[in-house]
């Protein structure tokens, strides 16, 4: 028991690692502030494409969505960060993470938004168009607000996934929370810094996970 506490919940080591972990946490927050809006924006584009009148565009979005939902995000990230330089395209870890997350998150958010848009009845479109609203105005003011509300639990739960996923940025040496914690671990030969990082993730995400369960159970009936 003592050795367990020493290895996993070592307060001295946590205190030493704290400044490093804190700066890592800040980078994680920064990263989330970049990739979540990016993903949501891309998802809207994808959803709009997937309900398009033009068959070619519909198929293209379908292929995009299926492809990027299939590729594990870590694979995508490594290909972009380590593979593209062979084609003469070099970028910072941050940039690589943003691109990978845009491709990955937009396809997941896109599927969610599409389901939401499809859940809004044809009558809503007709009523709005009959008052003279354009397609875009109808989409923006009448359909999307209802669509996002209908799929709110899915949007929130996918956002939790995106936040968790930012931890893979550590693999391309982006100095976010997990990277900082793992650095502290490798210096101290002690697992406590990563446990501390886990605690930070839990503090932020546990309430959201609870909320998602609530939302899902409420809408389920």
């Amino acid at each position, binding site marked *: 028991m003592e050795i367990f506490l020493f290895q996993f919940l070592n307060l001295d080591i946590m205190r030493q690692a704290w400044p490093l972990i804190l700066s890592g946490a800040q980078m994680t927050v920064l990263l989330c502030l970049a990739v979540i809006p990016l993903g949501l924006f891309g998802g809207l584009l994808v959803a709009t494409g997937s309900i398009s009148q033009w068959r070619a565009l519909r198929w293209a979005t379908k292929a995009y969505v299926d492809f990027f939902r299939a590729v594990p995000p870590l694979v995508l990230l490594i290909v972009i960060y380590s593979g593209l330089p062979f084609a003469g395209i070099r970028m910072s870890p941050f940039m690589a993470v943003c691109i990978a997350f845009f491709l990955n998150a937009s396809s997941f958010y896109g599927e969610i938004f599409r389901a939401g848009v499809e859940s809004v009845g044809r009558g809503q479109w007709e*009523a*709005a*168009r009959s*008052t*003279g609203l354009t397609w875009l105005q109808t989409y923006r003011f009448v359909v999307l*607000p*209802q669509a996002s509300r209908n799929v709110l639990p899915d949007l929130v739960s996918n956002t939790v996934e995106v936040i968790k996923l930012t931890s893979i940025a550590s693999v391309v040496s982006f100095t976010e929370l997990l990277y900082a914690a793992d650095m502290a671990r490798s210096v101290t030969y002690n697992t406590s810094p990563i446990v501390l990082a886990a605690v930070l993730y839990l503090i932020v995400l546990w309430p959201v996970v609870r909320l998602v369960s609530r939302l899902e159970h409420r809408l389920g009936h």
Partner: protein
Amino acid sequence: MSALLDVRGLRKSFGTTEILRGIDFSVAAQELVFVIGPSGSGKSTMLRCCNRLEEPTAGHVFVDGVDLMAKGTDINAMRRRIGMVFQAFNLYPHMTALGNVTLALRKVLGKGREEAEAIGIAALDRVGLKEKAGNYPSELSGGQQQRVAIARALSLEPKIMLFDEPTSALDPELVGAVLGVMRDLKEAGMTMVVVSHEMRFARDAADRIVFMADGQILEQGSPAEIFGNPQNPRTRDFVGELSR
């Protein structure tokens, strides 16, 4: 030519099925025209072609002299002049009654919030629901929802209003208030085309009855003519069936 709505040679097919097979009819200003006929006769489709929610396969629709089918016509500008009321109300569930009424005022006519809300409140007042302005559709009865939908169309000062079975989705006890609003509109001089099965109302309030079957207009005339002395055998069957 004083026709406010003029439909000429209107045809509509879905795939190989012909729903409308050449419709010609016109509605004068301040006229209330009732369209009746068996289900599947194309009444609703005809109505929905009048603001191009349904795209006609052939023919022309003129509203206030403007050809809706012409290339240069701004359909959205015309649509706000053509109010439409739906069987299923189609209120926006994420907006209050007032929000439902003011959306097009703000986005299509570009009015400011205050002005739009003043107009919206006035429109809700006309249908007797001023005090429900802040309620969401889910908090209203079916009849109240339909009256909000009428206010939504009314607030845009339409030249003509199209009613697509406005009372069919309502419980019987809620029908009266909606018909009351429609009667008020008629008295205020609104031009209306109504697809409905409310025959009592048709008899009382309509200027003209149009009988449709199989995608064609078979007969039209005053309520007295159509209900009292129908000429076409199909009309006779339909009216007889109803009065039994």
